[in-house]
């Protein structure tokens, strides 16, 4: 006798079913996390309550969630486009840092009048991130270097560049020799919504980026072309689509959006350039997950970015309330991810555990309903 998993394919699930199953899987993930809290000596119910109140329970909690959602959504929208074209940009973290660097330069060292600072920071920050991304495209198109390794390695280069600047030429005059730049002038600070710490402008950018990328993907020729490229360069070649140009534009766009997120962080949150690990809370990497969970749909990215923003914010509340090790958060996130992707498969496939006698032909159990 042996155990076998039998997997059969379903037809396209409805939107309401996607929603229902996703919520169910989140609940399941939290149910399992309850064991973790019990293990740590915390009442699971109390933990759920703190998490809920910390992520959604008040205007303040929601604002903390949205604050984290913004960079995730902006970067995630660009990555969704990139993944649709099968361009594996995992360098958003570095592109974001470049945006932050360029934004800092504009804020502190450019001769621009105060009223032009913010627009220039965002435009040049976009360009900085975009060119940093496009460099990976150049490497892929001209030198045939896989963009995964280029973008990944350029993350380290960007982080070292930030360190070089804050320890060297850009080290602030007012920070007593510590590794920070001077604070930005007030004109380079993003206005926040009410008493929250959510910058209004990047909040709008998050929705604009999602809409723009969605429109680009579904309603334009370029969107069609990039999805063909995503099916493979051979297909693109047959269809007469210049794959190299598409790759370059896709990396330009996703890099640029990451750059905007970087400017948003330095001008909306930090008001200075500081250690790379503190500028971004791993947003560039988390956004990869955000884009995948949304199945590379820019509108879906808004939802998954909100989910991850809520996870980060609710976990902050847990940390404050219980003084738990910060690594608990990784376990929580890992569980949520596993349950989410498992549920996604359950939408399409039915998995059943069967006990089958040895020697029986596999085909009988693996009938595929396509």
């Amino acid at each position, binding site marked *: 006798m042996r155990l076998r998993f039998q997997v059969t394919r379903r037809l396209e699930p409805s939107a309401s079913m996607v929603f229902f199953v996703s919520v169910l899987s989140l609940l399941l993930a939290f149910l399992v996390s309850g064991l973790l809290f019990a293990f740590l000596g915390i009442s699971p119910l109390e933990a759920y309550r*703190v998490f809920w*109140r*910390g992520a959604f329970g008040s205007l*303040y909690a929601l604002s*903390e969630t949205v*604050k984290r959602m913004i960079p995730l959504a902006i970067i995630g929208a660009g990555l969704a486009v990139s993944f649709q074209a099968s361009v594996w940009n995992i360098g958003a973290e570095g592109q974001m840092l470049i945006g932050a660097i360029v934004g800092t330069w504009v804020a502190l060292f450019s001769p621009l009048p105060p009223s032009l600072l913010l627009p220039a920071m965002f435009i040049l920050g976009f360009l900085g991130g975009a060119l940093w991304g496009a460099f990976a495209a150049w490497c892929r198109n001209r030198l045939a270097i896989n963009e995964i390794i280029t973008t990944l390695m350029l993350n380290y280069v960007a982080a070292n560049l930030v*360190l070089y600047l804050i*320890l*060297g030429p850009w*080290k602030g005059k007012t920070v*007593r*020799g*510590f*590794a*920070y730049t001077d*604070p930005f002038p007030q004109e380079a600070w993003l206005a926040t919504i009410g008493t929250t*710490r959510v910058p209004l402008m990047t909040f709008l950018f998050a929705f604009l980026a999602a809409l723009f990328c969605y429109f680009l993907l579904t309603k334009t020729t370029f969107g069609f072309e990039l999805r063909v490229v995503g099916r493979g360069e051979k297909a693109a070649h047959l269809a007469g689509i210049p794959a190299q140009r598409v790759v370059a534009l896709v990396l330009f766009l996703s890099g640029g959006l990451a750059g905007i997120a970087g400017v948003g*962080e330095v001008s909306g*949150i*930090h*008001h*200075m350039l*500081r*250690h790379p*690990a*503190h*500028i971004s*809370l791993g947003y560039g990497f988390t956004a990869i997950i955000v884009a995948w969970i949304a199945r590379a749909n820019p509108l879906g990215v808004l939802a998954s970015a909100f989910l991850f923003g809520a996870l980060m914010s609710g976990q*902050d*509340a847990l*940390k*404050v*309330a219980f*003084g738990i*090790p*910060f690594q608990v958060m990784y376990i929580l996130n890992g569980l949520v991810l596993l349950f989410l992707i498992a549920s996604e498969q359950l939408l399409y496939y039915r998995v059943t555990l069967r006990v089958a006698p040895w020697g029986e032909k596999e085909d009988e159990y693996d009938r595929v309903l396509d």
Partner: protein
Amino acid sequence: MKRFAVGVLLVFLLCFGFVALGNTQETKIKAGFIYVGPIGDFGWSYAHDQARRIVDDTYPWLETVYVEAVPEGEVEGVIDRLINQEGVDIVVTTSFGFMDGTFSAAQRYPDKIFFHCSGFKRAPNMATYMADFHQVYYLNGVIAGALTKTGKLGYVGAFPIPELKRHINAFALGARRVNPNAEVLVRWLQTSWYDPAGAKEAAESLIAEGVDVLAFTEDSPTVVQVAAEHGLPSFGHYSPMYKFAPNFVASGQLVHWEAIYFDFFAKVYAGLYTPKNLGNVDYWWLLREGAVELGADFGMPINPVFEDQLKSTIVNDPVYGEISVYDLVFALLKAMADPEYAFSPFTGPIRDRKGHLRVPEGVRLTMDELITMEWAAEGIVGAWPGEPE
């Protein structure tokens, strides 16, 4: 009806009286600590958390909570949660990078007390504090200068900022007091305060260049372990690292943040410190105040393994004359720890390695000059980012 009203009034008064009475008898203060690193890092945040536990255990009227691994930009949000969710009265933020966030929160919560480590921004409800090691490093340098055979000491530093530059300078000055030709070879990590792999390779490359005594600033006992592997003496940093290499940790720098916390919390409890009068409260506590300690382990200023060698090394000291290094260390320790603060490592004349006179004869550097120090003392070899011309 009148009687009833009077009765109600009486009950009300009684209740109020009890509440008021209860308050004066059982006032509890709740403090929230915010750390930049994990409390297990065995360095900075670990030391702060050890101190938090000690004061929490000692003061029955004090309750503490903590939040670890808080990114610098997130500190304001964590302060909000500590105050609104946990109801803390005092917020302690323990990283320079928390300064602006703490300062801004101090404006928004004028009736709460804020206590920020290593910064310089203060407010009526925000005080600052720091325990500094430069005296201890000077003593470590004296020991190192006597222990080295090659005349080359090694120093692994995390980031080239004034705090480390001050410490390395003190280390070099101390070493050259007993060994005028000693050199301090410096390697920087420039990645993170916690980088064991970097610390290991930096220490190895120093040893390959002939270094035979090691000191460092990084949040793990790596350098101590590497030195021991090569049979070389080293100096522990921040935490008692004796146990990682009992035969090789000669001494080290130990911190007692609780000394500062005891004082501060007690004064808040007694009503001496209020959210109105902290504008000039700045602790800069050293050996004298017991905020730092010389030692491989608590209560072990010099590892007994090295006692004989240090006792038999006689130097001709400009102040103490013919004296063994062992006695010199304790003489200097006494001079630095005395209430009159009889000796400072940064007393002129001191030249930097480019030959400029940095501290004129008879002058002692002020605290402000110490915490903005960028120059490199004579005898330091290696990159020194931000070195003034």
